């Protein structure tokens, strides 16, 4: 069985990645998860300056899903490079850093800085965090998406993954702009903007009022968007959104994803990603396939 996944310049041992913001900095999972089983790890989004994050409550469970508004709580890129990257680069799997800038210049500066570091397989650009106020919602404008990626491309040698938001009218236009700007691949979807209310107190439940919906509840939306983008845009797609089982993974591959990221499931089933990798050969066998690429984008 050939489980490898090909994403342009980036080749992964298998198509199962763990999504940014759902696996900490990997240290937290050491011992429980055998990192060598994973296709790769995307650590939590890093910003240029430290950010305390949003006021709690930061998450609330909803029907078959959850809302989060963490607010990119992190200690900044210098701390990431000094304290997390030295650990991450020792792990026996692909590490894909994830950055978010408040401006185009911040994206470019961070990409340039992190692009000089060893031990990274790729760089994912978080163009789509819904929980950061005052910033620019990069991935809702095709022109801005195109320009940011083009500028990052010019200063950073790593394969680039543009992580896209579903909170747009036409995700295909954004994905195409990312590809035209020089993204090696696109990953989608980030969380869907949502809200939860305590009607007795007449108050929003989240400290940030609104948050991003994730988990099994969003899988049909993610699947639809991945399918739309994969058939209309030339770059490989990484599917994200409510993926929790090997069946979910196979659905995304057939829909056109070349790899997937498992996210929220890490919160409620910490060994899920590793287990799903082990189940992939049998699932491929059901389709008479002996490699991942044989099933990618094979929807009738």
């Amino acid at each position, binding site marked *: 069985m050939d489980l490898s996944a090909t994403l342009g310049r980036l080749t992964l041992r298998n198509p199962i990645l763990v999504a940014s*913001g*759902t*696996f*900490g900095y990997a*240290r*937290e*999972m*050491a*011992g*429980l998860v055998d*990192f060598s089983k994973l296709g790769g790890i995307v650590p*939590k989004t890093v910003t240029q300056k430290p950010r*305390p*994050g949003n*006021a*709690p*409550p*930061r*998450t*609330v*469970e909803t*029907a*078959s*899903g*959850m809302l*989060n508004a*963490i607010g990119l*709580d992190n200690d900044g890129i210098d701390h990431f490079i000094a304290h997390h990257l*030295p*650990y991450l680069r020792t792990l026996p799997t692909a590490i894909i850093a994830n950055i978010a800038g408040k401006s185009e210049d911040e994206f470019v500066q961070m990409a340039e800085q992190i692009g000089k570091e060893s031990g990274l397989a790729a760089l994912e650009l978080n163009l789509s965090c819904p929980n950061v106020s005052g910033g620019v919602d990069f991935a809702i404008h095709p022109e801005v998406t195109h320009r940011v990626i083009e500028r990052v491309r010019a200063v950073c040698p790593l394969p680039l993954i543009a992580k896209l938001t579903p909170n747009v009218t036409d995700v295909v236009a954004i994905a195409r702009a990312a590809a035209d700007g020089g993204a090696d691949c696109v990953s989608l979807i980030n969380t869907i903007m949502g809200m939860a209310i305590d009607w007795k107190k007449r108050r929003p439940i989240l*400290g940030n009022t609104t948050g991003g919906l994730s*988990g*099994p509840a969003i899988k049909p939306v993610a699947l639809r968007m991945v399918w739309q983008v994969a058939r209309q845009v030339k770059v490989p797609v990484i599917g994200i959104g409510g993926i*929790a089982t090997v069946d979910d993974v196979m659905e995304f591959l057939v829909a056109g994803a070349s790899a997937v990221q498992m996210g*929220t499931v*890490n*919160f*409620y*089933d*910490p*060994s899920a990603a590793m287990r799903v990798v082990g189940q992939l050969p049998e699932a491929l066998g059901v389709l008479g396939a002996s490699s991942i690429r044989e099933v990618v984008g094979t929807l009738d």
Partner: protein
Amino acid sequence: MELATAPRFLQVTSRVAENVLLARNTFRIRLHAPELAARIRPGQFLMVRLAGTSDPLLGRPFALYDTVLDAQDRPIALDVVYLVVGKMTTRLATLRPDDRVELWGPLGNGFPDLSGREHVALVAGGIGQTPFLAHVRELLGKRGYGGDPARRRVQRVSLYYGVRTADLAAGVEDFERAGAAVHVASDDGSVGFHGFVTQLLGRHEPPAHLVGCGPEPMLRALANLAGTWKVPCHLSLETPMACGVGICFSCVTRVRTDDGWDYRRVCVEGPVFDAANLARDDRTGMHHG
């Protein structure tokens, strides 16, 4: 740098041994989980999730009530005491022996070692008594945890336990049997002292150390009393948690730093904090934000 030699926590499918009513809406569930029971220490917690459903989706954190030993004194199961408050605990209360749940743990830092103190007072409100039974047994040398032999650490342990009303008091006999002097307060005067548990505590001589677990206003009052008495005080916090293991950054609380405060994860840096290190939100006066 941490080495990935031994798992920091385990994820297991556990069989329900029993699930019994302790007080109104309050149950003790006994979960067969030998490896977890052998490692968990007082003040730590575990995540419990219902198998085979996506609603409720997430696990919920529960304090260790106590471990259960087999005939050869080996840890074989653990007890969790829970109050039925929502979707998950309503479902949990319907589980019967031989049903299965998903568990991961042990999680969190646990209570500090209070060896050498003469008198430790544990102060609980609502369902906040649950982490203290194992703590009493450890402090009085009735039971060892995490592979440690039983060893008496303090002379006396008191439990100050506040409830809304008498029929919500759960496990008082367990605490008495473990050797704690139990003082109950109730909001409506239906049992024990009529008033807040911190008011009851304030009528007694200061202990050498305070440990609190309960609703935020109670913890605030306790921290204030500890300040007045100049007695060291640890608080076990409960904040909304999604993962329990440090990867989601949901459960943060404000902790003092050199230049003010920063949010820290209760699941990995807590749930037990020195009250002196917690920073309150100026807007709400709350520890949690």
